């Protein structure tokens, strides 16, 4: 057996199937296995509080990967993610609480309904790009949230709805650990799907559309089909994330899905790295944990200045904005790019090149 720590030192692939392998070396396989093992054994070592945070991170990662498929891979800007999360959450809430369906049926339906609505709002993308599309998605956000908060008979209006945690047979996933496993498994499946999507005709078409949509059209890519498809696939994952989030917090209400949420998701993929799946996950963890770490920082500082608590939310906004700007200026490639640079450095390590 070869040494596990041996990394590829160059590109020696001789066939297409070699090139397309998901795990090129034994090392890559072992690494993937290790990551899965760490994810699954985490609850044994981490406290309940941290498991809850990791669950939120995993849910955000699913949504961020979804958004990255749209914005990073296909180049279509969407600042209406918050509303699509809401559509997913509300669909699941209505199906489980009002109609008494099982969570396991409601979850995929939530994804599909969000995908349909996302595809519908994706239709303008055929004629619009860049700024105009961004504003169209913002309009989608405002309109969807208005419908949600006014359709009292279906959604409970501004008061929102209450949900339950899912059950498997007799066993309820009401503990943080149980729900963590559910979210972690869905995240792993999402990663697998997104990685594979990149290697298919569809994924390559997305990249072509991102780089120059008119050129892609001339090369025979059906713009309408692929743009709407990108919106639908992306919204599917955002919807799933919304449903998972709704069942985690066990409540849905319109203000949980406002413009700020959309911005947070955009920040995740920008700070993580546009078009990178690993980056989406890093970004999701970063943005989800940022307010938590700020709060604990304030907790420490509050010993000296008790007024600080009133400033907390404003301070979070301030730091959030500063972080976004600093990343855009100094590391536009995002966290994923930092990670790649680190790997490059260690690959050649005692030598500089």
């Amino acid at each position, binding site marked *: 057996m070869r040494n596990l720590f041996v990394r590829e030192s160059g590109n020696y692939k001789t066939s297409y199937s070699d090139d397309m392998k998901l795990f090129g070396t034994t090392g890559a396989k072992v690494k993937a296995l290790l990551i899965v093992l760490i994810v699954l054994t985490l609850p044994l070592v981490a406290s309940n509080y941290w498991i809850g945070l990791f669950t939120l991170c995993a849910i955000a990662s699913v949504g961020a990967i979804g958004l990255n498929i749209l914005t990073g891979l296909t180049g279509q800007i969407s600042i209406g993610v918050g509303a699509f999360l809401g559509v997913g959450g509300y669909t699941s809430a209505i199906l489980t609480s009002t109609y008494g369906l099982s969570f396991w049926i409601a979850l995929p339906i939530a994804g599909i309904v969000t995908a349909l609505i996302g595809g519908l709002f994706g239709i303008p993308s055929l004629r619009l790009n860049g700024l105009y599309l961004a504003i169209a998605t913002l*309009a989608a956000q405002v309109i969807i949230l208005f419908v949600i908060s006014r359709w009292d008979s279906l959604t409970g209006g501004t008061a929102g709805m209450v949900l339950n945690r899912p059950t498997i047979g007799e066993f309820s996933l009401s503990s943080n650990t149980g729900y963590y496993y559910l979210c972690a498994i869905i995240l792993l499946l999402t990663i697998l799907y997104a990685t594979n999507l990149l290697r298919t005709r569809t994924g390559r078409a997305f990249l072509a559309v991102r780089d120059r949509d008119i050129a892609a059209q001339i090369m025979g890519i059906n713009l309408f089909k692929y743009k709407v498809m990108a919106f639908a696939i992306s919204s599917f994952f955002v919807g799933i994330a919304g449903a998972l989030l709704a069942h985690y917090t066990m409540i849905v209400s319109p203000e949980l899905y406002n*413009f700020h949420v959309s911005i947070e998701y955009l920040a995740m993929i920008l700070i993580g790295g546009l078009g990178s799946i690993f980056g989406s996950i890093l970004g999701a963890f970063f943005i989800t944990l940022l307010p938590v770490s700020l709060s604990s920082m304030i907790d420490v500082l509050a010993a000296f200045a008790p007024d600080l608590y009133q400033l907390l939310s404003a301070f979070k906004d301030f730091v959030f*904005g500063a972080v976004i700007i600093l990343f*855009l200026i100094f590391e536009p490639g995002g966290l994923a790019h930092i990670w790649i640079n680190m790997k490059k450095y260690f690959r050649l390590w005692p030598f500089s090149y």
Partner: protein
Amino acid sequence: MTFFLQMLVTGVVVGSIYGLVALGFVLIYRASGALNLANGEFVIIGPYICLILMTAYKIPFFYALIITLVFSAVLGLVVERLVIRPIQNAPVVSVIMATIGLSSLLGGAVHMIWGHQTRTFPPVFPQTPINIAGVIITPVYLWSFIVVVFLLVIFSLFFKFSKMGIAMRAVADDRQAALSMGMSVKYVYAATWMIAAVVAAVGGVLLGNINGLSPTMSAIGLTVLPVVILGGLDSVLGAIIGGFIIGILQNLAGGYLDPLVGGGLKDVVPFVIVLLILMLKPHGLFGSRRIERV
């Protein structure tokens, strides 16, 4: 009929302020092709400065306004220099995100410095409403209308005749050509951001006089987006006329349809209009069409 007229007049005056704030968007879009989503924060920082100068330092309104405008110009310059210029050549999503980040940062700063309570301006304009044929107009509204019309004329002349205005148009049209003709594009960008920040501050002071001042007022930055889309992102005239149209439609919809759906239509109607416009006429009423090339 009086109700209709009242709605119409309210729409016109609200629309005039929309037009003013939209002007800030359009100026920046014309010069640098960026959409400044932090415009809402530009709108509220100005009046806060003005208010502090007037209440804490007892400076008369006119001088306070001048100082505010100078401060806003500096703010615009600093923002352009520190945030926008480094990412000038980045993709659209990065520029949008940078301005969103900026809005979060400035909004957070405003919150931290001035708190979240609503403050009222000391009365600057006469308070007694004017009654014209049963329609009631507050002088503030009238003033904001006059200011907007005045600014519209000024800017039209500015873009047509002044050297700076022509340079701005040239840079907006083709940056590289402008560069090769020896124009300082950096200088033009900086000037654009300064002017946009000043216009936003004027709008903010007027708005602060009408509604009082609170950090939530920055939401106007988003409310005004439909206006610029309707008028066309790169048209000054479009911003003003779009402002009037959106203001009127919003108030009519609010007045007549709100009872049917239970309120809140005012915030949604503009965005419905946006979707329709984007579907039917993506470049707005007065926007210039761009030919797409591979």
